[in-house]
């Protein structure tokens, strides 16, 4: 009986030893990791990428330095093509956002974000509709009714065509069955200016872009286009769903991908590394300060999410009047 037990124990340990890679033998980067950022230094994505690198550095999470490299151009396609060309290289990562996902689809390019190795989604930035403080619309319903009476009369500002603002707007219009006059601006800041100056009737803005104007009673939120309400800050703002419009847009993500065909153990290493980055106090502070939602998602799950988001974009692009 005892020998049996002992044999079973030894066997069990042996099997376990084979199944679990011993820490000393796990894959680790051998040389500095190239962290490609498709946008210019100083932009929103660049800052998050550098924040991640700073955390890896300060918390000593990796044995090699991570080097941010801005490969700007072609609306992020230069970076994607570069990364595609690094097939199998375990030392190349690329920052990715919703724009990187949408542009290849709009331009009908052969490569898209699903072709690189999914590593991790860091966070989501919620889309909200805002109106001036003295606007006649008290709820989404008011706005939709007004839009039904006079199609195209409500001017709503947001970022450029093909941006998350534009697609969530398209989704809202199709769900509510109304026509809004979408005015594209080059970025969120310009869209804020337009609504503060009274040049448009409403705007698609992220929480951080509008929260202070809410505090001084210049702007007022009508709803959040997410599955659930915001977890911190403006927790009292109802979702679109609560107001009877099934508009859930959770594709405005920021995350990181790797070179295509990267060895599985390398990918697993980065997934784990990025997970540890998001578990630090520094990251928590960053998330709170910028009012985004922590939404870590790693590896295959993130890949699945990217495919779903691509399908959503394709579906929205096919709607009449969206890609004018």
């Amino acid at each position: 009986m005892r020998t049996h037990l002992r044999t079973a124990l030894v066997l069990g340990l042996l099997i376990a030893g084979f199944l679990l890679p011993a820490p000393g033998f796990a894959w680790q980067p051998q040389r500095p990791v190239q962290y490609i950022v498709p946008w210019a230094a100083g932009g929103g994505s660049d800052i998050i990428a550098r924040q991640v690198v700073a955390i890896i550095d300060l918390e000593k999470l990796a044995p090699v330095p991570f080097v941010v490299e801005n490969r700007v151009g072609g609306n992020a396609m230069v970076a994607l093509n570069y990364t595609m060309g690094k097939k199998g290289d375990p030392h190349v990562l690329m920052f990715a956002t919703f724009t990187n996902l949408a542009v290849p689809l709009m331009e009908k390019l052969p490569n898209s974000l699903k072709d690189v190795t999914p590593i991790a989604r860091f966070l989501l930035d919620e889309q909200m509709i805002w109106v001036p403080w003295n606007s006649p619309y008290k709820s989404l319903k008011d706005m939709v009714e007004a839009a039904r009476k006079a199609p195209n009369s409500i001017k709503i500002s947001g970022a450029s065509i093909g941006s998350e603002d534009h697609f969530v707007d398209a989704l809202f219009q199709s769900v509510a069955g109304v026509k809004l006059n979408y005015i594209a601006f080059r970025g969120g800041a310009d869209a804020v200016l337009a609504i503060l100056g009274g040049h448009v009737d409403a705007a698609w803005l992220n929480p951080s872009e509008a929260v202070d104007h809410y505090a001084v009673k210049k702007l007022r939120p009508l709803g959040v286009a997410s599955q659930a309400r915001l977890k911190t800050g403006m927790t009292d703002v109802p979702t679109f769903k609560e107001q009877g419009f099934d508009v859930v847009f959770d594709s405005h993500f920021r995350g990181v991908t790797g070179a295509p065909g990267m060895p599985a153990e390398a990918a697993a290493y980065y997934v784990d590394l990025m997970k540890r980055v998001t578990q630090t106090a520094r990251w928590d502070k960053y998330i709170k300060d910028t009012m985004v939602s922590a939404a870590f998602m790693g590896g295959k799950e993130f890949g699945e999410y990217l495919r779903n988001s691509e399908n959503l974009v394709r579906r929205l692009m096919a709607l009449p009047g969206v890609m004018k």
Partner: protein
Amino acid sequence: METFEMLMRGFSIALTPTNLFFGAIGCIFGTFVGAMPGIGAPTGIAVLLPLTFGMNPTSGIIMLAGIYYGSMYGGTITSVLVNVPGESASVMTALEGHKMALRGRAGAALTVSSVGSFIAGTIGVVGLMLLAEPVAGFGLRFGPAEQFALFLFAFTSLVGFSSDSRSKTLVAIAAGLLIATIGNDPLSGRTRFTFGSLDLMGGIDFVTVAVGIFGIGEVLIAFEQNYKMEFVESRLGLRNIFPTAQEWAASAWPICRGTVLGFLVGILPAAGATVAAFMSYGVEKQLSRTPEQFGNGAIEGVAGPEAANNSATAGAMVPLLTLGIPGSASTAVMLGAFMIWGLRPGPLLFSKNPDFVWGLIASMYVGNVLLLILNVGFIPAFVRMLRIPFSVLMALVVVFCVLGSYTLGGSVFDIWVMAAFGVLGYLMRKLDFPQAPLVFAVVLGPLVEVTFRQALTMSQGSAAIFVASPIAVTLVAAAGLVLVGPLVWSLRRRAGAAGTAGGT
């Protein structure tokens, strides 16, 4: 007097040894970055940004702000010495300042621009401090239609006040606008005129255009004419470094006008220091009693734009601090820095983080003093650069141009584009086409297009929107006047002359 108290508190923060030190580093680095074509203030700020993560936010922002206005001082240096604008806001300075350098007045041009920048920078900060809140509301009234009307006015003043042929100026503007449409459509995200080239998808940056047209174009002309700069060398004595009383007198009003104009334009969304400098140049040329001097080294054309681009940087801080809206690429990067430190610029910043805001404002006063000392102190050294043998200097200009266009996006393709614009610049010089309007159009093209399309989308296609608000209608009327005015004037004069001739 509350403002005064707050400012004193700000000074007590800005003048601590640590903050003074980081402010000085920022100013020096900014001057350097501004002088290098291709590396502008936004890049400089972004590169030093990670260094500030570990600092206390006030020290960090003092350093970054130092880079920002330091670059406006620095942009002048290469513009004047080698005709390569280091910053888009210094394009006009190259136009007049370099001509002055060829006449041996490089020192005067640099001194006037440093002093002008100092005065404008300081008054700009006073404006920022006292007027931030009321003036922020004024900026907001500029929607797409009003902004477009402003650009329209800027362009027509280029044509109307031009001493070059009007039709050639128009052609140059049209070419610039056309170049600006290459690449990504700023609103639809689609690409245009790229012929499937990935390199062209990002569009053509104005730096490649300006550096090519001014820098390489200049080198090519120099080779052809085989001109030498000996006459410059004989005048490098200390006495010639500083402007004459006459030059000071000529610069005084342009500096004042540039300061006010720059601050107002800086506040407006999207306009910024470059537009301010261009408009100041136009105004000075218009008001000048000797407009024919413009293009041949008129000191007013250095003093006005240089003052304007510095007070515009202070003006651009108004929407950034009060509304959280960046008016330029540099302030956009600074906004990112604020976010990292957990500060959200906007209507609450002044009340929530007074030490930060007032420390920053006080540091801008200190920084301007630092930069004045730094720049005036080094002018003799800068001017001596012109003693470098001409052949070597020209080779250096080429190196500058190549480096500048490469560092932009790290792509060799940009070097070729720059070289092509060099040839274009040469041809334009030979055929007497004005170059500045083309560069101006490349800079403003995307803004003009975006605001025009936004306005028309808002009005659902009706052009009436451009005359629907008092601001827009005033600007459009001014644009019409500027365009038609000189034409009518000259026709009448001609008719008058013909009339008298017929009478006798």
